[in-house]
């Protein structure tokens, strides 16, 4: 019986994921309606439930892909993986006007470079405050605070230890998850309610998954603007991390 269920679920993994995610979203909107009177967006609850499930999946299986490491729910890995995520992100650009993008173009570019440098400096500063004096360790942790991709790319390029690289990935994951949860909470107080500030937001935060989920839970109309700048961030981070930023740190340590 269990074999039968398992074989059907595995063979139809993506279809199972559609059903499971659909039920999760239905439940989230119900919770948002009943318990918060619509004050908390249903999608914000759905994303939080997703993260909780991911934590549970990670602790149960010891894997790195959250709930997708559970055999019966493997399809979630495909549904929420890079390919379909990017496909869906690009589709949100449908209906965007070129004039809106041009209006925030310069601020968008400024925000990407400022975002990488600020996150790096803050991360490196925290590493120094924790007593690190080795420029390689400081740079790797700083790069992790940029994104969890920039951390290991930089760390490997400058010869950081495996332990440092793990730490930098953890810092990047904390950032990404906090952006997912925190964005709808702070959106109003940081003026995140128009295409221009969404582009600046995407460029400053840079974590594609964080920005994608954070804006979805705030106002789906802002998604294309934030996603547009965020996708350049990791590339810029990978470029600056092992070069300019590492040299900068080496000057002081």
């Amino acid at each position, binding site marked *: 019986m269990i074999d039968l269920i398992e074989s059907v679920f595995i063979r139809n993994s993506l279809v199972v994921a559609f059903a499971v995610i659909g039920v999760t979203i239905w439940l989230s909107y119900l919770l948002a309606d009943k318990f918060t009177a619509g004050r908390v967006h249903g999608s914000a609850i759905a994303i939080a439930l997703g993260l909780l499930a991911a934590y549970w999946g990670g602790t149960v299986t010891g894997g790195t892909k959250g709930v997708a490491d559970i055999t019966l729910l493997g399809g979630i890995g495909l549904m929420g993986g890079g390919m379909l995520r990017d496909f869906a992100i690009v589709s949100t650009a449908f209906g965007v006007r070129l004039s809106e*993008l041009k209006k925030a173009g310069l601020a968008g570019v400024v925000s990407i470079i400022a975002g990488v440098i600020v996150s790096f400096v803050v991360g490196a500063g925290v590493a120094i405050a924790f007593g690190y004096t080795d420029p390689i360790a400081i740079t790797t942790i700083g790069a992790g605070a940029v994104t969890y991709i920039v951390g290991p790319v930089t760390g490997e390029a400058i010869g950081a230890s495996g332990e440092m690289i*793990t*730490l930098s990935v953890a810092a990047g994951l904390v950032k990404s998850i906090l952006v997912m949860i925190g964005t709808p909470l702070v959106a109003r107080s940081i003026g995140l309610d128009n295409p*221009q500030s969404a582009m600046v937001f995407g460029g400053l935060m840079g974590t594609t*998954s964080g920005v994608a989920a954070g804006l979805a839970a705030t106002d789906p109309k802002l998604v294309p603007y934030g996603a547009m700048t965020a996708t350049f961030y990791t590339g810029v981070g990978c470029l600056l991390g092992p070069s300019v930023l590492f040299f900068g740190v080496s000057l002081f340590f």
Partner: protein
Amino acid sequence: MLIYGVALLATCLVIGMLVGQALGAALGIDANVGGVGIAMLLLVIASNSARFKGLSSGAAQGIQFWSAMYIPIVVAMAAQQNVAAAASGGLLALVAGVAAVVVSFLLVPVISKIGRSKTETQQSGEAP
């Protein structure tokens, strides 16, 4: 035809990814530089063109379907984050991640303002 819209979307993404990867290679890094952003620009240009309006209305539906699937896909993405690793990263990882987010949040209004005052002065400059 619905598939025309899906195919247009797919073509934009593939071209964007190719350009992003090539851009990364040209810069000497193993990362995709703005592939998704470039794909989005292509879709904006394509969907605003006169030729796109020549396609049947089904083409728009093919793109809007994926745009409506965006939030479900993001929920699935959240469900496969390595939350356990983030939680076990220790105090240093936690403080570094939180501090980076807080400072970046605070900068959003600052940099948005720079951009806005710039466009406002441009607009007033253009006015006769």
